């Protein structure tokens, strides 16, 4: 474990010197992208776990807290927009409430699948010395009210746009100052919800 942390820090120290004065080097951008995609993958993993009713209940509950920890803070919201009878409705839910509701869906079986088509915008520097980007993920949900049902009772496809923030954090390792770039998730905009059947 210690070796892997050291090698991680070493990798960061190798990446930093190439940071351009007036912008981000391609190396650092690439590093950011990997770091962000890793966070997004973890979010997808937790969403799948929380929704999966065949998993251990304690594991599902602890996944809620771990999913919330991926965010900058608990004040981040998930904006859900849905179309019903041609009318758009928008609801804001704090992240924890969003995951709690996902956990409590009244159904015997919930299957959430993420397509491997995550996309990330260019990373840009903001006025507060943080870096900003947006990630897009694509989710397919199937809900079975009875486990025995072969055909899902409800299905939808949603596209989630996620605010990403990277705040540089300076730490000292031995006699070296190392800058870490932890990525955090921000507000989420659930862009579309469409019935697929």
């Amino acid at each position, binding site marked *: 474990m210690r070796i892997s942390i050291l090698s991680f820090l070493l990798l960061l120290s190798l990446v930093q010197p190439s940071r351009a004065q007036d912008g981000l080097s391609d190396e650092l951008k690439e590093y950011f992208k990997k770091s962000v995609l890793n966070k997004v993958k973890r979010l997808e993993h937790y969403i799948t776990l929380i929704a999966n009713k065949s998993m251990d209940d304690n594991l599902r509950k602890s996944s809620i807290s771990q999913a919330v920890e991926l965010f900058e803070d608990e004040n981040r919201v998930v904006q859900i927009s849905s179309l019903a009878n041609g009318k758009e409705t928008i609801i804001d839910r704090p992240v924890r409430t969003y995951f709690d509701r996902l956990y409590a869906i009244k159904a015997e079986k919930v299957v959430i699948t993420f397509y491997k088509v995550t996309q*990330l915008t260019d990373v840009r520097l903001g006025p507060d010395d943080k870096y900003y980007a*947006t990630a897009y993920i694509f989710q397919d949900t199937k809900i079975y009210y009875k486990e025995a049902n072969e055909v899902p009772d409800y299905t939808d496809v949603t596209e989630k746009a*996620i605010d990403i923030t990277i705040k540089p954090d300076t730490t000292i390792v031995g006699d070296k100052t190392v800058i870490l770039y932890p990525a955090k998730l921000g507000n989420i905009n659930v862009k579309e919800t469409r019935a*697929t059947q």
Partner: protein
Amino acid sequence: MHIQRSLCFVLCLCGSIAQGQVMYDWENRAENFHYRVKNIEFFIDRFNNQPEGSGSARAANPKDTAACIAFMKERDQKVFSLFDLAHLDKKDAALKEKINTFFRDINNPYQPRFIRFEDMYWFAELMFVVQHGAQKKKLRCVMQVMPAGKSVLVWAIRSFHAADLKVDERFRTSELYFPPSVNGTDFMNVRLALNDPAWVNEKLKKQDSSRSATLRQFYGGDLKIEMIERITYHFLQLEGWIMTVNYVNRESKNSGWLIDRLWAATRQEKVNYLKELSVD
């Protein structure tokens, strides 16, 4: 180098692709998602024929004829895919001529024209549905990408406008700023911030914003944004042209942020357009 080409072939070729793209096909939904122009930055990258998420514009070397032709051909197809093809009448000869002229203007080997996120000559127009007393009203808010230091960009509110509410305010500075990625989640942070009295109060202490009656109404709770009903991007960056980009929500590869209006415009017409947008 002498590159000759007829852009009519672009319309014919892309027309056939387009017909396939507008097909309703759930089996291809992951592919549709991949092609959908999900972010205006991806729109810019695709318009410039650059990888999505790259954020830069590089043309092919005009001395390398083969590379240049390949780049132009690819760009023609990509730019065509950025039009709302379901609402493009392929039999309209005048429209065909206009698009061909546009392609010739922007995609020539010697002086290709690109659009840039960093360029200030483009705007986002947000149409808010606001709660004003017991009534629902529309409030237009125009935002612009502005520099805020070395290599730092922000989205800043440039104006509020609502004839109904007798609101017509302009902001000269970038005091009402948001992170450069705020467009990614459809400006939801703008809605949340304007509905947050603490954020508005902080801005009311700034010189330019302190005069804003609209901000004071937000602060006092007399105005509350219920939703952002529509977002339109206005691009004035291309010499001789104005184009508007809107979100098209349909199960197709030809979806997302697409060009819905394109017209030739002189410099004076652009100045007049800025007045219409309330950012003059």
